């Protein structure tokens, strides 16, 4: 068990057109380049970046859907880019690094909820009792026990995504990457998924990477990483990141609404300062400003 669970060194990836194998595209620009970072066990990290910034590529490299063009990746101390890393080891990494995708419909395979959740553990060749126990416990963690015999396609978007998460939990991963897992959900479904994400992190100690376009989600993470045009440009606490509204705008992002409001006031010459990461903080900062002015 290593303290640093994900480590990348000068990580880079360039997509090549597989249909044009004989034409070597030298001018293809890398989707990701020079990314070096360390994520500690149990961290809750949000990954931001505009569409096409390379953040999903980063996620796919971490659980070996893609293999790096250059650079190194260490998962739990194991060099997954090393020469002695075998095909067999790939399965071990995929079990350790679970991924929840955007569209729940693309992730559910079975016609009954419990069978869908059992799909992963069954493929691990686990004994029957162990599978039963893992399925029950995973469904209970995501609050879907009462739907155990239901058909997944009849569930709401949020419920489907919870079943998909249960399928990942049943594999007992150490890292879960949520790749825009809330993008297709309504506000209630989104709140449910975020709540589970945080519970897995705080209570089960699972390292969580949340790739998202929702700034209010990112504001809840311990740490925020911003990728722009393939490069890591910001890596700090959520509090620090959302103070730099101008920088976020310059890379096509936004801050939280609270931070945007404080920045808009400053922009009009108001000498306002204070925290604005949460609703409470924003209210306090504005109330203090108003009382001082009146």
């Amino acid at each position, binding site marked *: 068990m290593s303290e640093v669970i994900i480590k990348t060194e000068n990580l880079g990836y360039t997509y090549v057109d597989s249909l044009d194998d004989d034409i070597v595209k030298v001018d293809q620009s890398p989707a990701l380049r020079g990314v070096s970072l360390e994520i500690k066990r149990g961290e809750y990290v949000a990954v931001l970046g505009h569409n096409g910034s390379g953040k999903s590529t980063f996620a796919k490299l971490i659980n070996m859907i893609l293999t790096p063009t250059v650079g190194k990746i260490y998962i739990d101390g194991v060099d997954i880019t090393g020469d002695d890393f075998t095909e067999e080891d790939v399965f071990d990494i995929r079990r350790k690094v679970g991924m929840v995708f955007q569209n729940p419909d693309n992730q559910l395979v079975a016609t009954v909820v419990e069978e869908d959740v059992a799909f992963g553990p069954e493929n691990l060749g686990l004994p029957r009792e162990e599978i039963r126990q893992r399925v029950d416990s995973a469904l209970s963690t995501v609050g879907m026990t009462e739907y155990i015999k239901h058909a997944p396609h009849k569930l709401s978007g949020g419920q489907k995504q919870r079943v998909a998460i249960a399928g990942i939990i049943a594999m007992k991963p150490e890292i879960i990457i949520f790749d825009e897992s809330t993008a*297709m959900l309504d*506000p209630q479904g989104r709140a449910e998924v975020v709540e589970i994400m945080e519970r897995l992190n705080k209570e089960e100690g699972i390292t969580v990477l949340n790739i998202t376009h929702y700034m209010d989600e990112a504001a809840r993470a311990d740490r925020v990483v911003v990728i722009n045009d393939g490069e890591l440009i910001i890596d700090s606490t959520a509090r620090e990141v959302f103070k730099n509204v101008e920088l976020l705008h310059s890379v096509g992002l936004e801050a939280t*609404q609270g931070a945007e409001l404080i920045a*808009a006031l400053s922009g009009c010459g*108001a000498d306002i300062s204070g925290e604005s990461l949460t609703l409470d903080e924003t209210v306090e900062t504005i*109330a203090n*400003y108003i009382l001082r002015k009146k």
Partner: protein
Amino acid sequence: MSNILELKDVSFVYSEGTPFRKVALNKVNISFERGKITGLIGHTGSGKSTLVNLLNGLYKPTSGQVLLDGVDIWDEPKKIRDVRYRVGLVMQYPEYQLFDETVRADIGFALRNKGMSEGEISERVIEAARFTGIGDDLLDKSPFDLSGGQKRRVAIAGIIAMRPDVLVLDEPAAGLDPRGRREILGSLHSYAEMTGGSVILVSHSMEDMAHYCDNVVVMNKAEVYKSGTVREIFSEAEELSSVGLDIPMTSKVAKRLLDLGIKLEGDLYTVEGMRDAILRYTGEVEK
């Protein structure tokens, strides 16, 4: 007549005559104005999606009328296809429906089906591409080589190319980054303004509704809960909470400030409106 599309006492029932009978819409009356963007909000199961499918004749009302320019779209059921050219529907994640070899061909597909001349098609394709911000350099590329945000624009351009009188979009900005959201939603505004068409926007994002729409219709339990201008709807933010909807973040701040005895006035549902209201309150700008 300023109303292009009207729903009169429209009801829709799923699985009528079976034990699974479900009333999805119950005597709904709504009018959509020319040149305006109308937001349609309501939590999942409120009847929004059923409503969208009724607007261009994908569903037929169980009772009541859908009037396009004053004419019931079901008067001549054989002509319902013409209605679909006039009421363009952009479904959720429309980029999954791209299929043609080039962006140009994909945007022009419906026009070609309609039997329009190649010269006219080419003009319309370029116009639609400009509306949605697709550069000329992308027109001869394969749509599958584009980024997600670009694909979304191509799909929307395919509908805009038909120059529909009514453009209906179901969550057109879902999954896009903040800049992409702004650009796509901003282009809808120019579509409504420049063509005089009516735009209907379905979204869960209250911030986007407050920022981009002129009018808002709130659906709840198969009925219209409330409708009016953005200002009318969002100045009563608490009512929205009562039907299970979120309210814009700045409205929440305003409400909390009110609890502290600070009563702001103005369009408190957008960042800009809230900013101005605070500056007026402190006397930094004139009332």
